[in-house]
């Protein structure tokens, strides 16, 4: 077994390196990803190995980045595009939702556009407007796309490779405030199928479902709850579309209580979809309503107050209290 300690960011770098080394049709494209190595240095050094035709510093235009990626995919290439920040994906929203997502349906299954779109996402980094958002529900609502959000280095290393190998377009949300989170990466034994959720902490009394940047928060909340005598199971979704409802259902049938937490606003968010599905699948097992812990219905707030906006350990514990008190 060859296990290496890596940050989540460097695990993605290593995963991308592997993709570029093994698939000659793969290439990276985005703003500042070449010489600079990306604003978060996730592509650092790759241009030296693979050259500017495979690590492409693009002109500054998101619709152009995704639009040309679609064209290259139609030509037989496997582009992995980078959008610099979550809030800057919207100039490309048309290309992603009306073109990328629909190419396979439009061609009646003859061909699709297997493009991967990497997006550093989420808040908690004290940044300015448009640099802290969680727009995953907007894309999850669009059929034809798949959405992943790794939470740890090992998953990140393998899931970016699974995304690249997938014949469907994948939006790969990278939890930017966890880029420097170190973890053990086993580069020989692959992570589980990227579209399967994982129970990362077993428990008996309640279930917390989350993904991406809030996984460490959920684990810490579960640990704190243990001190109150509550055994809390934590599920890392990993894939946000499709969602592995079987794993959640199995857990809730055991625990009877479900908390869903994400940074994205609660209203219209994926927590609502999970709550509805689980109420259909496991209604008689539920001891309390499914409780969602998400962002407020407001534009992502200014950095000075974002700690009050973001779901944290206390908010998750408060939700658990409500669930147990029901």
């Amino acid at each position: 077994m060859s296990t290496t300690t890596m940050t989540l960011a460097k695990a993605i770098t290593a995963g991308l390196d592997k993709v570029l080394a093994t698939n000659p049709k793969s290439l990276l494209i985005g703003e500042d990803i070449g010489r600079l190595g990306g604003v978060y240095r996730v592509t650092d050094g790759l241009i030296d190995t693979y050259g500017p035709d495979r690590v492409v510093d693009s002109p500054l235009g998101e619709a152009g980045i995704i639009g040309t990626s679609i064209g290259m995919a139609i030509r037989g290439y496997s582009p992995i595009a980078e959008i610099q920040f979550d809030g800057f994906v919207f100039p490309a929203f048309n290309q992603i939702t009306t073109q990328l997502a629909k190419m396979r349906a439009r061609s009646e299954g003859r061909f699709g556009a297997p493009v991967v779109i990497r997006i550093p996402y989420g808040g908690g980094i004290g940044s300015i407007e448009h640099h802290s958002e969680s727009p995953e529900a907007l894309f999850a609502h669009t059929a034809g796309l798949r959405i992943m959000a790794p939470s740890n280095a090992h998953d990140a290393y393998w899931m970016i490779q699974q995304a690249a190998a997938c014949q469907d377009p994948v939006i790969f949300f990278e939890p930017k405030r966890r880029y420097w989170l170190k973890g053990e990466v086993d580069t020989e034994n692959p992570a589980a199928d990227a579209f399967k959720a994982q129970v990362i902490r077993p428990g008996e009394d309640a279930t917390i479902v989350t993904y991406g940047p809030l996984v460490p928060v959920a684990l810490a909340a579960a640990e704190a709850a243990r001190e109150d005598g509550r055994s809390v199971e934590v599920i890392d979704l990993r894939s946000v579309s499709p969602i592995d409802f079987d794993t959640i259902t199995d857990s809730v049938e055991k625990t009877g209580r479900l908390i869903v937490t994400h940074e994205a606003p609660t209203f219209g968010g994926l927590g609502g979809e999970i709550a509805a599905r689980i109420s259909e699948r496991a209604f008689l097992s539920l001891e309390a309503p499914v409780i969602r812990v998400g962002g407020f219905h407001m534009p992502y707030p200014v950095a000075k107050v974002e700690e009050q906006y973001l779901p944290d350990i206390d908010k998750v514990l408060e939700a658990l209290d409500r669930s147990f008190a029901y």
Partner: protein
Amino acid sequence: MTNTVHEPSGQALIQLLTPEGERRSHAEYDSYIQDVDAEMLRGFYRDMALTRRFDQEATALQRQGQLALWVPLRGQEAAQIGSGRATRPSDYIFPTYREHGVALTRNVDFPQMLRIFRGISNGGWDPRENNFHMYTMVLAAQMPHATGYAMGIQRDQAGWDAERLEKDGEAVVAYFGDGSSTEGEVHESMVFAASFNSPVVFFCQNNQWAISVPFSVQSKVPLADRAAGYGFPGIRVDGNDVVAVLAVTRWALERARRGEGPVLIEAITYRMSAHTTADDPTKYRLGADEEAWVGRDPLARLEKHLRDNDLADELFFKQVAVDGDEMATRVRVEAMAFPDPELAQSFANVYAEAHPLIQEELKWHLEYEAGFADTTEEGATR
């Protein structure tokens, strides 16, 4: 309200055949049509006449309730046949939704195209058979695809010498219109193509009208002039002159193949019909404006040239008309015979790989529909 076609700021409109059907020589572009003999000219006429006949039949089918919508191209036949005939089979075309004439030059089967407008398919044909992409309904969304495809060609042809590029090099034609020229994706596609020197020809059919809005609202300068801002050549051509369109498109494609980068062609033409069958041009444009363009009809121009120069006889024109009617009959019969699609097939084409939500919803759908199996009555079909 009349529409003003802006005068070119720095260059003349390329025209090799006047509206009166007279051949004009051109120092630069004559060399690109040395092979155009009487037979080829008759071929262009036939292409244009068949395209117009197809357009007429599809319009009739829509009026008879057999198509949900039709997008007429009457008046733009020369721009489409001239540019389409300039391409090689190995070139790849990204059309708008009005390129029925270009489709003919790529041997796309006309009845197949009606699958889109009959509500059977959103794609219509297999683009890989003729390198003619599906119609894109979101204006200009296909433009960056064209540049990206050309970027792929560049990678596939890396290391080729000049001789091989000229012989086997591929290029892309990206079609768009005067209305969609305002869309941001046109701009981004041109910036990317310029920066990477990609082999793509941007072909704009300026038909003067974006549904009801005249060209003067889209631009205060000829669109071809915008190319200078991107750093590649822009050229204005008489879009109703099939010979001139052929010449300039060949020029642009040759230079793209040689690795000299993109070109913007602005073909000045006129949408003689409505935007779609749902449109009513009498609400926004003057009859006099339309009359003026009747005198510039691309088919009449080529017919006059052929007749005045004894390049085609009466029998030829009669035969083209007969062939057009036969084609139209086949289009009608085949289009009406298309089987209705099944919704179940729509589930199959959302994703390439297995997807639990799709599987779950398909299963529910099939079970739900099966529940009606024994309740069909009065010939009702579900």
